[in-house]
């Protein structure tokens, strides 16, 4: 079990870090959340019942750790700062709910399918699809409205 966790860590670390960073809103916090999440997984590995995949179970822990990191943050990132400098495009992430953001991040950054996202967030597959579609609509409308 420990070896499988290490293999997962080494093979999927960029994706874990990227999603955790997106959720936490800070790269350092995101990377730290991944470390902490895997430490939790190592400690609780005996509680993994094998009802889903090990990766889905770890994703659930990573998402929770990233949420904790975001809540523990003292200074919240300003999403429009970078855009003001003209170095980053503007997208109104604030228009998305927390669940919509997490599903978007897991789908685009980790390339997880609906089933894996559903397992990672402990929700149904249908909810994943509906939520992702709603998030896409919101983002497309926002992109069209933002002057470039």
């Amino acid at each position, binding site marked *: 079990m420990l070896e499988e966790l290490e293999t997962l860590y080494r093979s999927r670390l960029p994706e874990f*870090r990227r999603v955790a960073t997106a959720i936490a809103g800070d*790269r350092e916090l995101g990377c730290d959340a991944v*470390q902490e999440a895997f430490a939790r997984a190592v400690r609780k590995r005996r509680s993994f019942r094998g009802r889903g995949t090990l990766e889905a179970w770890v994703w659930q822990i990573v998402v929770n750790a990233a949420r904790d990191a975001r809540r523990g943050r003292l200074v919240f990132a300003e999403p429009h700062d970078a855009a003001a400098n003209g170095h980053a495009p503007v997208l109104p992430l604030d228009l998305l709910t927390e669940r919509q953001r997490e599903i978007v991040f897991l789908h685009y950054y980790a390339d997880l399918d609906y089933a894996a996202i559903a397992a990672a967030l402990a929700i149904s597959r249908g909810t994943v699809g509906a939520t992702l579609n709603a998030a896409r609509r919101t983002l497309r409308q926002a992109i069209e409205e933002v002057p470039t």
Partner: protein
Amino acid sequence: MNEWLEELVPPIRGDGDWDDVLRRARLPARRRLVFAVALCVAALAVAPALGVLLTRDGGPRLPREADRSNVVVIVQPATGRVVVQAARWKGHDGICYLVLLTRAGCAPRSARKTVVLTPPLAGYTFDRRVVSGAAVSLAGKHVPLVVRRFEKLDVTFFLTRGRMPRFLREATLFDANGKVVAHFTFKH
């Protein structure tokens, strides 16, 4: 939208640090150890008081009238358990005793007096002739008795050997010549 997401959080390269994960995973184990040690310390601190409470409210103890400055004991070798405690009866010519943690009392001295307490078989005698004893179990098996004389108290205690109480049919105390000093039969 894909482009925007690509730029929102650029890919994060790096091999990571698995050893750091393992180090973090061990931290709670240390916390558990510290907690366990603290629990042990607390238990040790509370144990004497708890012991006093349990002893006070539990079974018989050596009576208060006993002269505790000079207590004699018989220890069961196999278990280290104290099976007999005895001392002078303060202000009287007699003894106070605690036998097998079940029977306690004080008794005046009487030259030939022998007291048998059952079950399990145990007792004392002021008869100085008694040096040995034996009993017969319900199955007819002969079992020797432990017999100990305490010169200071001028009393002899006797009891069955072993941890398990035996159901006995009769018991006999002997003098140095093997003559019967006292004989008891038990009804069940």
